[in-house]
């Protein structure tokens, strides 16, 4: 048995172990689950230094010697202040000083939420712009869009689409108004329509997601039957 087949077989056993939950909760699943969580935690410990702290913190603080291919990199000592800040988090289990854990948390949160305003500008505003669709058609060009359309023209069939687009957008937005007590029939209808039209979006998401999930299963079955059985055991193809 060569190494790559052993590796495939280990993967197969792990797969069967996790799939066994489909029948019912059992000891084999429990064993696989604990190995899984253990390996993941072990890997986090490895990645902690090799992926995060070494490059993002230690090398920047201590610098790097010159090598054949790159020059000297200076070390910047102020990076060391991050360590005591991080350590303050460990006061969380101390009743008297637990408030100190909020300092690193506050800094992390600040660094994350501070980016939200900028993110909103680049993410949402262009979509708002794209939602501003014209609804006055250029009727002289025909009803449906031909294969060779007039540049810049809006065909009546497109207009209908744009009206539906805007109706959906505005009614769905109106569904998410929480602090207004809608007394008028029109607004009540609008929020209800919004909820219904929202379901179209969710339906589309459902359809697309089904594709992904089934593909993952297909890939697993490909692994089991083609890669393990046919290519691994029977050494074919």
């Amino acid at each position, binding site marked *: 048995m060569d190494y790559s087949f052993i590796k495939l077989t280990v993967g197969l056993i792990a797969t069967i172990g996790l799939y066994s939950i489909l029948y019912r909760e059992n000891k084999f699943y429990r064993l696989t689950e604990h190995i899984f969580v253990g390996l993941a935690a072990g890997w986090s410990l490895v990645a902690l230094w090799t992926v*995060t702290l070494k490059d993002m913190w230690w090398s920047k603080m201590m610098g790097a010697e010159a090598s054949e291919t790159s020059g000297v990199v200076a070390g910047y000592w102020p990076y060391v202040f991050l360590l005591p800040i991080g350590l303050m988090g460990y006061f969380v289990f101390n009743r008297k000083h637990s408030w100190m854990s909020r300092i690193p948390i506050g800094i992390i949160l600040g660094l994350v939420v501070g980016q939200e305003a900028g993110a909103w500008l680049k993410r949402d505003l262009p979509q708002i712009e794209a939602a501003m669709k014209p609804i006055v058609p250029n009727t002289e060009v025909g009803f449906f869009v031909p294969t060779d359309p007039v540049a810049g023209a809006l065909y009546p069939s497109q207009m209908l689409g744009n009206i539906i687009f805007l109706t959906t957008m505005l009614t769905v937005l109106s569904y998410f108004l929480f602090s207004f007590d809608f007394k008028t029939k029109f607004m009540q209808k609008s929020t209800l329509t919004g909820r219904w039209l929202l379901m179209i979006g969710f339906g589309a998401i459902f359809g697309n997601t089904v594709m992904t999930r*089934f593909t993952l299963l297909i890939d697993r079955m490909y692994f089991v039957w083609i890669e393990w059985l046919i290519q691994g055991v029977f050494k074919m193809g």
Partner: protein
Amino acid sequence: MATNDPTPRSFGQRLQSLSRQTVYLILIIVVSASVLISKFMGLTLPNKPGAGSQDFFAAIMAIPEGSTVFIQSDVTNSTRGESAGQFEALLRILMRRNIKFAVFCASGEPQAPQVAIDVIARINAQRIANGERAYERWNDWVSLGLFPDGRATAKAMMANLRTAIDKKDTPPGKPPTDVWQSPVMEKLKVIDDIGLYILVTASKTSDILVERLKFAPVTYGDVPLRTKLGCMVTGVMGPETNNYYRSSQIFGVVIGLNGAVEIEHLMENGIKPGQSETYRSLSIEGFKGMQNYARGMAYYLALHTAMGLLIVLVIMGNVGMWLTRRQTGGGA
């Protein structure tokens, strides 16, 4: 469960009460059979590429030869089913068109760079077997490795591309060297110098890039692009990423397994005039006669049967409910 139920069941109730385990078993059988049939019969199923994939294909076919494309590949083997098919198709096109690329991961998934390198090795082996030129690491492509924080990396690339990428790769027969000395990277100074920025992802990294990257509009041949960012995403991320495509925040989007098949189909047949919705007169030759259909098509039959099964089961459930209701006296 079913066996403990003392009351005799109607047909309608039975239709609704397949046990979970039965449903699971049917699914495994259906999918396994389809995968095996597809493998041994080598089926090619029809497909009709959508606008997102067409625009994506048009852009990577229009970009000038010799320019450098950034590929941010954030996928691992856990979404191999969809992502690998897309990634392989992308690589085949880039290699056939002699476009240089730098591949990296910016999602903190330590395994992703190796997964990408493995795929490149596989495609390269196929190229050599087909008598094509091997794509050489360092001269034709580089691996920039891992950037643990996508947000920070995108921001840093916008601010200063040269300092944001502080990585080494291995030239043939030499020790690891600063990537900026590689032919792939040496001409780049700011982020607008890259040809295209393509994201292959199974998660929300598309949001992160859209929120942080910004490109000046550019025209490649007949294809005007308002941005150089394009995405290959899994089906789940499809509808959300599609919004960015609809508002021109990305130039094209390839969604899921169907998208992988669409790209393979476009590679085979190209785009004929009038076919592309966005660029009506655009005409692109495909790569007829080369190996275009690959992993996407290998899984496509199973996708049909599995989705067909889901539809049948949902119909069964609803017919069952309808029959039961009718028996128990009207719309009770």
